[in-house]
């Protein structure tokens, strides 16, 4: 198939929302000669451009694959519903951003699966790209459909659609996969997949598992891993429009609702020198004015004060701001905040998660209530006015009093805030507990839909309007996420059926169509409650139980 003339593409773009999602041409995008490349890879985060470009996974792998002179790596994202219609009507296949080639012309299509609710978008991308949605229907000439990312901790619901999963860290494995795929050219697909299956961390659903288990892939020395220093600068606005630098992988805490302890551990660090170097090169190369230090728990980076102090010193007059998501509200944090306030402030987030100390302890997040209020008070004193507070409801062992305590806590923080000039703007975000594969709570039940709605109502009432702005997800969205997170291979049929019925962008509350999903599950003779609401007994094997994780070893410090 040939490349599109710009004019043909234009006709589609005049009538869609945010046409710049599809035009590429961004600064630092790597455009190579499609015809002469020995291996052609296209990476996809299955959501719209402005969400997909906000993550780090694709950016890291893009750089790694492109660093080989004879390999080519491009990007594609899920087209909006309007563009999907325009592509379908005009018979135009979905194309990559860099050279506008149809996805079916590539050797490998790799999905970054960060969210179970993006599952139907994966099917949209496959279908529009000219690739059969089911692995079983693909020919030897179809691209290898690969997937990685946090949702792969339970790959089973997507097993019908993905030829090979990469479970765990991608930096080294992606190179091995590309080499194996390049090296087996000309062989049958099953022979090639068998070759892939020998790589540690790779799970090929169509093959019997040798030894019955797949070991999660780990890179031991994060310091030695490549990290982009010339980040792509989107020409149009994206959600996280800044230089993101991963300072630490894994998390030292063991919050019971979180997958990270098992799935991203052990903790591995990048050195301060390396981070400063990445920051310097990235800012010069991109022209961005904001850096975000990305990790699951920034205060637990051993030298965080020194790092922030140096960054603040370097950039305080260059108008570069430093964003520190994921701070724990403790004494350490207070020292840190004093450093960060030297540069332009971005918003501040605290995640108490539970309303009472008792429940916080039960979920493994032992922050005393005074500690939380003290941390907020310090923030106000140091000049912050915008604070985001993360809470979670429907946790195991939760009672109504725990939810009401959230309101009390928010009220306390708000009243401290009112003492300061300008008052406080509190944004409270309430997530619903979802049992995730690999979390200590992976077998715990999620309450039924009505109960989630009841508890959410209780939370809404306990937070007085004048105290904070409350945001939450549609309860059905959390229920569906639970069903997909803990699903087995049969759930794949429901995903395909929901997609056929028109499910798209299910992670967006205003696009989620509960009716379609209820219908899809029921037509496939499956019960969402079975996956979401059950307390799974200890003895029962789990669909993702075949994935093994190494025991924690020492953190590697560069």
């Amino acid at each position: 198939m040939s490349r599109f003339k710009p004019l043909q593409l234009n006709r589609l773009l005049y009538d869609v929302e945010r046409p710049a999602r599809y035009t590429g041409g961004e600064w630092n995008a790597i455009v190579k000669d499609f015809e002469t490349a020995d291996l052609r890879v296209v990476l996809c985060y299955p959501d719209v451009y402005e969400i997909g470009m906000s993550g780090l996974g694709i950016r890291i792998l893009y750089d790694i694959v492109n660093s080989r002179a004879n390999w080519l790596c491009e990007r594609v994202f899920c087209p909006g519903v309007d563009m999907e219609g325009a592509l379908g009507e005009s018979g135009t296949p979905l194309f990559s951003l860099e050279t506008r080639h149809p996805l079916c012309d590539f050797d490998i299509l790799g999905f970054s699966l960060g969210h179970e609710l993006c599952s139907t978008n994966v099917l949209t991308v496959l279908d529009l790209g000219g690739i059969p949605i089911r692995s079983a229907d693909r020919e030897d000439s179809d691209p290898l459909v690969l997937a990685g990312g946090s949702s792969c901790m339970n790959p089973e619901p997507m097993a019908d659609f993905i030829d090979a999963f990469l479970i765990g860290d991608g930096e080294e494995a992606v190179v091995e996969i590309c080499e194996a795929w390049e090296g087996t050219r000309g062989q049958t697909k099953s022979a090639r997949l068998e070759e892939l299956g020998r790589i540690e961390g790779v799970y090929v659903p169509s093959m019997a598992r040798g030894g019955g288990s797949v070991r999660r892939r780990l890179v031991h020395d994060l310091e030695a891993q490549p990290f982009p220093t010339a980040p792509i600068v989107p020409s149009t606005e994206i959600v996280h429009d800044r230089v993101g630098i991963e300072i630490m992988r894994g998390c030292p805490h063991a919050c019971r609702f979180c997958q990270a302890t098992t799935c991203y551990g052990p903790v591995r660090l990048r050195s301060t020198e390396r981070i400063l170097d990445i920051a310097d090169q990235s800012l010069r190369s991109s022209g961005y004015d904001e850096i975000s230090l990305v990790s699951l728990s920034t205060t637990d980076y051993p030298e965080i004060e020194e790092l922030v102090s140096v960054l603040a010193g370097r950039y305080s007059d260059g108008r570069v701001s430093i964003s520190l998501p994921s701070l724990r509200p403790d004494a350490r944090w207070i020292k840190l905040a004093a450093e960060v306030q030297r540069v332009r402030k971005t918003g501040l987030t605290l995640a108490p998660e539970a309303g009472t100390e008792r429940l916080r302890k039960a979920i493994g997040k032992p922050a005393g209530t005074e500690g939380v209020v003290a941390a907020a008070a310090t923030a106000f004193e140091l000049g912050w006015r915008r604070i985001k507070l993360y809470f979670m409801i429907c946790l195991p062992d939760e009672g109504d009093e725990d939810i009401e305590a959230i309101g009390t806590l928010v009220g306390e923080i708000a009243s401290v805030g009112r003492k300061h000039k300008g008052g406080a703007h509190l944004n409270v975000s309430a997530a619903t507990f979802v049992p995730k594969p690999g979390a200590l709570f992976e077998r715990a039940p999620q309450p039924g839909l009505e109960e989630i709605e009841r508890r959410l109502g209780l939370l809404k009432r306990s937070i007085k309007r004048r105290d904070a702005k409350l945001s939450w997800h549609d309860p059905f969205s959390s229920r569906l996420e639970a069903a997909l997170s803990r699903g087995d291979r049969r759930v794949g049929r429901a995903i395909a059926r929901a997609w056929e019925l028109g499910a798209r962008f299910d992670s967006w509350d205003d696009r989620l169509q509960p009716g379609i999903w209820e219908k899809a599950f029921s037509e496939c003779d499956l019960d969402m409650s079975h996956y979401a609401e059950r307390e799974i007994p200890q003895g029962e094997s789990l669909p993702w139980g075949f994935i093994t994780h190494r025991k924690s070893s020492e953190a590697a410090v560069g």
Partner: protein
Amino acid sequence: MRVGFRFSKAEEARFLSHLDIMRTFERSFRRGAIPIKYTEGFNPRPKLVFRDAIPVGVTSSGELAYVDLEGPISPGRVVDALNAVLPSGLRLHEAWKIAAHSKDALPAAKARRLELRFDPFEAGDGESIRANAEKLQASESVVVCRSKGGKKQEIDVRSGISEVSCKARPGGGVSVSALLALNSAAPKARELVDLLLSGVKKSQVEWECEKLP
């Protein structure tokens, strides 16, 4: 020091919005290591001003803007530095010093000239487009529907159209040149396209819009 510059928005940048272009320039100045002055106050903004609003979907070779820079820099260096770091589709053509405190930093635009090029789908399309253009020129009132704040409004944009002329293109296409006023009483680029393509199978016609200097 204040520097005015003229830049073009070509094919690859056609679908960038005004805000996209502002952001892209701000970052390009940083990449090119040319320090821009910022406003004082709580939320400093770069002192970068575009004379006209830049619509999505329209190319242009004559967009004008000015920027306040820290320290003396030759306008030639601004052009070279920026062209080395602008993404494809955006390019500076010239830059010049603007006297401090000069009242009109950039020559005021009197009107906007758009050229629309159509490649018709069916045999009679070219004729239909010509006829629509002639009708526009001849009409006393031309009404478009716009939504403002959720409510739909009907606006007569005829007064904003000073001139509409047609030319045949090789291959059976039509070129329409329109001179429009610079106010809300003039049709937007997309509205003009819809008026010219009335009665024609819109989704099949290839067209593009360029703003002429």
